[in-house]
């Protein structure tokens, strides 16, 4: 292949005038991490709530949960990103729409909300299956002890369910991390977007994307290591 390799490119100044190409990728990395963590907070809390709704005895609650999951799980993420960014400001009352469009870093907030709501539907399914995996006797024992529904969930069902679903939750966390790259379509300068700009500016295509790959792999490995440590620590005694 007739290609001019230059691995030192990372230490050359980027044309944006704010540091080297490596700095550029690192600033992308920090946006990726910020987006992934903020959206995970929404995804985990909202997802747990929706997952619990789907297991409650109330038919109405189940229906609300199911509707949410089907709506957010079945629309492609890219489409959701566009809907939040381009359509939502248009259907809001005029002045709100304008405020939203002029908001600094609006692509970051949009990405966090969009990813949070999307991943919540997937977390909800994990939480629901986690609760349904538990022996029925656990819920009954809670009732027999005179616990309210809230107390049964808080002290009996959820602590067990979360331990059971930790491995699939790790996968969801990693998916969420990688899905942040979809936000480049609405102008968020995260890691993939930065690798793309770097290859456009420097014409060193393979170096840019190799660096992005290594960084994504690196974070994923860290997450997996932490999560497997956590799994061993919080495993339900006797279940492993």
């Amino acid at each position, binding site marked *: *292949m*007739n290609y*001019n390799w230059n691995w030192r490119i990372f230490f050359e100044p980027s044309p*944006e005038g704010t540091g080297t190409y490596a700095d550029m990728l690192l600033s992308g990395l920090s946006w990726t991490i910020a987006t992934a963590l903020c959206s995970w907070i929404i995804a985990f809390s909202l997802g747990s709530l929706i997952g619990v709704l789907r297991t409650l005895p109330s038919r109405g609650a189940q229906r609300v949960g199911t509707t949410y999951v089907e709506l957010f799980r079945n629309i492609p993420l890219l489409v959701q990103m566009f809907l939040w960014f*381009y359509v939502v400001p248009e259907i809001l009352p005029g002045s709100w729409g304008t405020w939203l469009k002029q908001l600094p870093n609006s692509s970051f907030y949009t990405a966090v909300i969009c990813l949070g709501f999307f991943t919540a539907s997937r977390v909800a399914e994990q939480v629901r299956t986690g609760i349904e995996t538990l022996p029925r006797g656990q819920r009954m024992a809670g009732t027999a002890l005179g616990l309210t529904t809230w107390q049964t969930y808080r002290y009996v069902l959820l602590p067990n369910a979360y331990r059971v679903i930790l491995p699939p939750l790790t996968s969801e966390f990693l998916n969420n991390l990688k899905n942040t790259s979809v936000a*480049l379509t609405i*102008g968020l*300068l995260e890691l993939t977007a930065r690798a793309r700009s770097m290859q456009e500016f*420097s014409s060193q295509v393979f170096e840019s994307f190799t660096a992005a790959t290594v960084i994504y792999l690196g974070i994923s490995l860290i997450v997996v290591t932490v999560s497997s440590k956590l799994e061993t620590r919080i495993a339900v005694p006797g279940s492993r």
Partner: protein
Amino acid sequence: MHFGHHRSVALSAAVVLASAMGITLGASGAGAQELTGTLKKIKETGEITIGYRDASVPFSYLDGDQKPVGYAFEICKKIAEAVKTNLKLTKLEVKLNPVTSATRIPLIANGTVDLECGSTTNNVDRQKQVAFTNTHFLTATRYVAKKSAKLDTIEDLKGKTVVSTSGTTNIRQINEANTARSLGLTILPAKDHAEAFLMVETGRAAAFVMDDVLLASLAASSKEPGAYAISTEALSKPEPYGIMLRKDDAPFKAVVDEATAKLYKSPEGKVLYETWFTKPIPPRGINLSLPMSDPMKKAFESPSDSADPAAY
């Protein structure tokens, strides 16, 4: 520490491998009379591969029948004919391969594509990876805004939100102007031209900074072509667009340069330009109304492959 060591070993291995490949290529191309490089490949396979863009109006794009058409695409077809004549081939099959702004350089480098026909700016950084033939178009950086916003000069943008496509030379220029002239702009990066234009259309940004020819085509193909105006003040000197080919392949470049120079100087070149820039073009019959500028006339009279805007 340990990790860093392994990585540097891997990196230097890649560098050694790459330079070894470079040496082999150079050695095999040493024959005096024999064909080398791309010409040799074309002669042996009877095929030439043209890389085209899917939405670079009017340079290279897909028409209503999903067939590539355009100004640069036509030039590439002429080059293919010239190559066929030069190699005395009875039949030359022209293969087509779609490229994007991210894939065009690697596909030229790894030999998938022999000629890239689109709207690629010829600059010094890119010349480290590829070669360019004679310039086929010159474009300056300007911005498009809604007519109702009454924006025309760079100063008019003060304090506004502007958008440009990420990874382009244009976003770099607006960043520089923002700092140098303290305009206090908020600069949004967009993924591609269509999205950047959408930001102006929906009011997310006041102006879109880009090559003026691309702005003209985006505005002309929008829902309300009359609602947009392109700034008169430019952010840069006219920059050259060129057709890309593999670097360090002098015999092939000589054939291509000769073919393009001949075309540009002939009346046929002028007709070709007028067909795509001053007349209705497929698929929707829009007219870009961009008659040949003076620097462009000069570039056709004395064809050049220089990357320096001052040369035009």
